[in-house]
């Protein structure tokens, strides 16, 4: 009689996980990789050409300042610019968190019934497609009546940034929640899972990659919303963000300072994107195609 194979341990497969490396090694590996060095070289060359061009053509700084002058201005005005950076960052962060929470909650509400989704989704689209520049003055006007000084502007800017940031979350999360594998749905149906259990153990994890995709878009949009709204609001006072600095610098023809503020805005945007990408890779590293390292 043949021996039934069940008693035998299966042949161990070699795991396709990358070898364990320390954080330091990983960082060194990343910094020395072509993905990091190549853009760096391009950037440095571009800055050099820019600097040389400005020097050779003798362009006045109020038309185009050289990168060295921009850096000097950044250091000189660091105090004011950094304060503005923090304020813009606060507006972005609060709007982003509000967008994430409201976006996920609304998505979960949407999938409870096709009718709810059909009835309300068009209005989410309307909110998204209306240019924020056009409705920001209205929002600021209304908020002035509701929120007392000195938080009025802050609240208004947060709302504007939130309106811009929440749509990608809703759109992506709703798609994710609706994209659950039908076989897995059957498994849950078979074991009589409650609606709540299906949401927690099946739909939310299945929607995670979609949600994280929305998160990356939303993070950048929150910053853009915060900056654009501040341009419109044209606020002054102690709580001025980076947009205000850019605006004032341009009025006063302090173009190097304008570039410095612009640089800070860009750096903030990049930091937001990189952090969200890292978060996404961390959450998906064990199972999702997008985050798995393969040796082919």
């Amino acid at each position, binding site marked *: *009689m*043949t021996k*039934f*194979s*069940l*008693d*035998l*341990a*299966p042949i*161990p*497969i070699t*795991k*396709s*996980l990358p070898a364990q490396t320390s954080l330091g090694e990983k960082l060194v590996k990343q910094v020395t990789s072509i993905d990091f060095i190549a853009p760096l070289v391009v950037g440095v060359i571009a800055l050099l050409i820019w600097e040389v061009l400005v020097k050779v053509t003798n362009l006045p700084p109020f038309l185009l300042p050289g990168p060295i002058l921009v850096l000097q201005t950044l250091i000189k005005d660091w105090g004011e610019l950094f304060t503005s950076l923090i304020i813009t960052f606060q507006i972005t962060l609060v709007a982003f968190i509000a967008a994430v929470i409201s976006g996920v909650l609304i998505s979960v509400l949407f999938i409870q019934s096709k009718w709810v989704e059909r009835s309300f989704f068009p209005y989410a689209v309307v909110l998204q497609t209306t240019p924020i520049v056009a409705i920001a003055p209205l929002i600021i006007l209304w908020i002035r009546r509701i929120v007392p000084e000195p938080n009025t502007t802050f609240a208004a800017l947060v709302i504007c940034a939130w309106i811009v940031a929440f749509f990608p979350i809703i759109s992506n999360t709703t798609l994710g929640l609706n994209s659950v*594998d039908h*076989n*897995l749905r*059957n*498994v*849950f*149906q*078979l*074991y*009589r*899972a409650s609606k709540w*259990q299906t949401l927690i*153990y*099946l739909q939310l*994890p299945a929607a*995670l990659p979609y949600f994280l995709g929305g998160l990356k878009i939303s993070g950048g949009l929150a910053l853009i919303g915060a900056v654009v709204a501040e341009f419109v609001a044209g606020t002054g006072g102690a709580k001025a963000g980076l947009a205000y600095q850019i605006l004032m610098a341009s009025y006063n023809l302090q173009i190097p300072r304008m570039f410095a503020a612009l640089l800070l805005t860009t750096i903030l945007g990049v930091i937001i994107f990189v952090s969200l990408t890292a978060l996404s890779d961390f959450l998906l590293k*064990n*199972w*999702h195609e997008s985050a*798995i390292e393969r040796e082919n």
Partner: protein
Amino acid sequence: MSSPVPYSKPKSTAIALNHVSKIYANGTVALQDMNLAIEDGQFVSLVGASGCGKSTALRLIAGLGQMSEGSITWGDHQPQKELAFVFQEPSLLPWATVIENVRLPLKLAGMKDRDSRSQVQEVLHLVGLDSFAQAYPRELSGGMKMRVSIARALVTKPKILLMDEPFGALDEMTRAKLNADVLHLWQQGDGNGDRYTVVFVTHNIYEAVYLSQRVVIMAPRPGRVVGEVAIEAPYPRTEEFRTSRISNEYCREISGRLAAAGAGTEYYDEQINTR
């Protein structure tokens, strides 16, 4: 047609389908007037070409979907508690480890992880995956994923095991191995001397003959039962049985009946393709 069962002991009926039909909204008759009584502890296979309603019948038994006509009656069982289903695909949660996947049915039943640990370990051992408890599905081969799926089905200690072409996507060697494993599990039973009642859907005649006590033959358009063959070979069935003369004769008989029942199917297929 009546089927002689290689058991002298009278058995009670586990599942009975009475004039069960399933008609889809677009008018497709997936299953027409199916009658089938399955006894406690029996291993029954449903074979037939695609569209013969074999999977539909299984899903109706599992309560996945509404039947259009007829009824399903149960023996002493509480069908929803004592029934397990192995799907065509492994259908595992990709974000969960093997142990979490196997634990899922118990978790959904409200059992705490601490209380279900020994039960989960036991089935993992049964399917030979103890050392892979912490692996993710993507790290496993197709055959191993299917084992996890079987472990998940067995963890609730079901009385009735429904399997829907579980090995259809596997290579021949892995399929043979898992066939032997399934028979072994079935013969072991639930540990109290009771065998599972297994309803096994397949389009592979050899597999059906090797595994089953009864092979129910079905034909498409409309999906219906056209006959039945009792496989009167003793268990345990070995690898030699698979290629034995007896097994071959059963296969020939079933395949002949399938061909007879399916006369005209080619014609229909052509019609559909040229449409």
